[in-house]
């Protein structure tokens, strides 16, 4: 909420810029684009009541428009400008008076004395704002003193500075000061308005503004009371010291010398709020290190490799380790059989045992596949039928259509399943028959058993299984994992800081010391295991395959690698502009505090946020963030020694902890608007908020120099 006490809507004098002319529609459009909620129209020696009314009505509900005139004043031959702003309730009579006083004199030549201005216009409930010092043409201190002497309420006299910095300096020196846009070109107003003074308290009317100028306690209390607050009783120092506090849904500042228990109070507040069901904790600057918060060492880092689209291959690793060689049929078996010519007559007549076994493995596999399809479709059908929400979404009609299609599919698969089952069983029975005959003929006749297979298929099938397993393990080991990148925070001009986690899988050749294993910190043999798997892959079709598998089994502690998850290596580091970066302590503090304030919480409890931070960062980043939280009704409770925070945020609630010479501590509460601090148990006299702030806080004096940007105190 911004205030502009000095604007021009017309080129009145010859020296005025044409760009000061603005019509009602342009004015409305511009004001709606700004945060200006109070604007005084102060043309040179001129007041156009009709235009004022139009402008006022056009932004009614968005921005208050106050009537005024910037008069040319002549005092002891010196020329100066004095702005006179009156209550909108008196706009019409004020307009008539202006016309009467100026008469037919042109705005270019009209001048008036200080005495006359007060005499003619104070009756309209007026605020006088004098061009001062570098704001030319200015009234001298003597002129201002004269003005103050003439008016009935000296607090209605303000000094207009040329900019916020000058205003701050004047305030620091005890002057009531403010500045306005003195608009030269309405086309630039939206951006220029960003530098206007900010109203910390919501001012609802001209009259309320005047009461705030008077530092009227009731008015300030009324305004503050509109803000939601909670009365809290805490005992951070034991039952003997009860502390009753109002905590506003705004900025609440604890300040005071070191050792006055501010942190303890924050912790007690945290306990209180947690007891009420909020989730709060005190953010203590420098307590946590950025590298620990982001767990660079990976102490808490866990990951399931399957979530990254990588099979953990635990079954395959087990099957490789458990693989054994298959025997082949020796030629001596054939030799024995054919040497022992069958003499038994019956045996000679039996031919079944002479038949060759057929391949039953292919039909067995086919049958297995079809059986699996059948199961999958049946499972899907069950899933659809038992899920009421899904039924509701897809509707009865579509569901029935789907069931019809699924039933047709199942029927087809069933019929195929029967066929493949018959194919498989036919061959299976055929082979069994041959084997039975071979065995029985041998048993009954004493004839040597005829070998029914060379053993090639079993031998080959075993190697195929091993190859399949090794291939799958290797394919998954070779997969590239996209680095996980998390934003850490903003380092301002340097850029954004990220935390990057690189993940690679040990393939038997990786020896980068920066990478660590996720699963274990002990020296486990991941590299050897991966290397042995690579070796096995090169010996699948050699006689030495099982020697290589034995080598895998003999790797010391190799059994700890049970899946590819165990082969995962990680390296976590910070990056800035794509390069590895180690943030300084200050940068770490910046980022941690910024992140704390970026969290969406109801209550922020922050202890000494200024630690390790530069003034610029506090002023430009942290203070605006704190204000933003306050605007959105959050409870921001800060213990600080820093005036940038304690003063420039203009807290609704300043809580001061005083440590007196008797080592007793007292709590005072107050705010910048009343400018006083009251002892909560009434033992001590009231204190001056500004004096205490300047004395107690680091950078107190300069902080007051900046307060001209914000209306609210003197």
């Amino acid at each position, binding site marked *: 909420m911004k205030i502009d006490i000095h604007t021009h809507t017309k080129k009145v004098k010859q020296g005025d810029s044409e760009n000061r002319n603005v019509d009602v529609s342009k004015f409305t459009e511009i004001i709606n684009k700004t945060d200006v909620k109070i604007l005084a129209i102060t043309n040179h020696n001129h007041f156009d009541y009709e235009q004022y009314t139009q402008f006022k009505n056009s932004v009614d509900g968005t921005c208050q428009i106050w009537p005024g005139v910037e008069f040319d004043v002549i005092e002891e031959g010196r020329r100066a400008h004095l702005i006179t702003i009156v209550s909108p309730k008196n706009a019409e009579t004020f307009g008539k008076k202006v016309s009467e006083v100026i008469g037919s004199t042109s705005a270019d030549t009209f001048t008036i004395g200080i005495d006359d201005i007060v005499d003619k216009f104070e009756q309209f409930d007026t605020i006088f704002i004098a061009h001062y010092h570098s704001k030319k043409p200015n009234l001298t201190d003597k002129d201002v003193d004269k003005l103050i002497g003439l008016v009935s309420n000296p607090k209605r006299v303000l000094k207009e500075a040329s900019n916020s910095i000058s205003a701050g300096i004047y305030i620091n020196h005890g002057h009531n000061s403010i500045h306005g846009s003195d608009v030269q070109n309405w086309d630039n107003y939206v951006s220029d308005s960003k530098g206007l003074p900010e109203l910390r308290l919501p001012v609802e009317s001209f009259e309320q503004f005047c009461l705030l100028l008077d530092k009227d306690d009731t008015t300030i209390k009324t305004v503050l009371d509109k803000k939601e607050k909670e009365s809290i009783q805490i005992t951070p120092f034991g039952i003997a010291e009860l502390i009753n506090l109002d905590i506003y849904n705004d900025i609440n500042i604890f300040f005071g010398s070191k050792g006055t228990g501010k942190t303890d109070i924050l912790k007690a507040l945290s306990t209180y709020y947690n007891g009420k069901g909020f989730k709060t904790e005190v953010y203590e600057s420098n307590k946590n290190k950025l590298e620990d918060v982001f767990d660079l060492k990976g102490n808490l880092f866990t990951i399931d490799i399957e979530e990254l689209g990588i099979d953990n291959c635990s079954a395959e690793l087990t099957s490789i380790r458990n693989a054994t060689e298959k*025997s*082949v049929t*020796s*030629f*001596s078996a*054939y*030799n024995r059989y*054919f*040497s022992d010519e069958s003499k038994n007559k019956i045996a000679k007549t039996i031919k079944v045992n002479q038949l*060759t*076994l*057929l*391949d039953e*493995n*292919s039909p067995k*596999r086919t049958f297995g596949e079809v059986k699996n399809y059948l199961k999958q479709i049946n499972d899907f059908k069950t899933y659809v039928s038992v899920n009421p929400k899904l039924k509701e979404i897809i509707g009865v009609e579509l569901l029935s259509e789907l069931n019809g299609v699924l039933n047709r599919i199942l029927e087809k698969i069933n019929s195929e399943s029967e066929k493949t089952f018959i194919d498989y069983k036919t061959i299976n029975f055929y082979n069994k028959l041959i084997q039975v005959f071979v065995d029985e003929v041998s048993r009954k006749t004493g004839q040597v058993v*005829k*070998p*029914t*297979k*060379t*053993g*090639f*298929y079993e*031998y*080959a*099938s075993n*190697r*195929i299984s091993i*190859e*399949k397993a090794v*291939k799958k393990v290797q394919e998954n080991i070779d997969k590239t994992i996209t680095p996980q990148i998390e934003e850490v925070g903003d380092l301002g001009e340097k850029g954004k800081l990220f935390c990057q986690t690189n993940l690679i899988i040990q393939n038997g050749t990786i020896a980068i010391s920066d990478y660590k294993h996720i699963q274990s910190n002990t020296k486990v043999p991941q590299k050897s295991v991966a290397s042995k798997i690579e070796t096995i892959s090169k010996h699948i*079709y*050699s*006689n030495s395959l099982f020697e290589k598998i034995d080598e895998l089994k003999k790797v010391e502690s190799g059994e700890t690698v049970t899946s590819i998850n165990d082969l995962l290596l990680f390296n976590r580091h910070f990056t800035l502009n794509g390069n590895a970066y180690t943030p300084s302590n200050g940068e770490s503090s910046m980022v941690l505090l910024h992140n704390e304030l970026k969290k969406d919480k109801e209550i922020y409890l922050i202890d000494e946020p200024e630690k390790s931070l530069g003034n610029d960062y506090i002023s430009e980043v942290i203070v605006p963030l704190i204000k933003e939280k306050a605007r959105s009704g959050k409870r921001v409770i800060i213990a600080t020694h820093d005036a940038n925070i304690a003063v420039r945020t203009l807290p609704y609630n300043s809580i001061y902890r005083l440590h007196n010479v008797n080592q007793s501590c007292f709590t005072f509460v107050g705010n910048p608007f009343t400018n006083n601090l009251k002892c909560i148990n009434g033992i001590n006299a009231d204190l001056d908020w500004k004096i205490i702030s300047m004395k107690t806080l680091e950078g107190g004096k300069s902080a007051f120099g900046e307060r001209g940007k914000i209306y609210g105190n003197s």
Partner: protein
Amino acid sequence: MATHNATIERKDNENATLKLAIGSEELSIVLTEDNPNEIKAVFNKLLLQLKNGEIEFNLTDEKEDLHFHICKEYITQLNAELKSTYTELRDNGLLNETE
């Protein structure tokens, strides 16, 4: 499917070898000795050959002696098992891509 030649080499009455010719390579299995490792080495080569395409062997021999009968039966069984293995390699996607 490629058909390769299988022959029996007889050195004397005692020693005979089954020769499996695959292109320029010749795989040998001594019929008169029990040497499983020798058979496995041949099987490994057959497996690698199967990855390039289906194969079978045709035994050519002029003598109808014991070795012939043994080899005839052996080749018959081996051909059936080569066929099954080829199917398994194919079903598991382990055939060489050039095939």
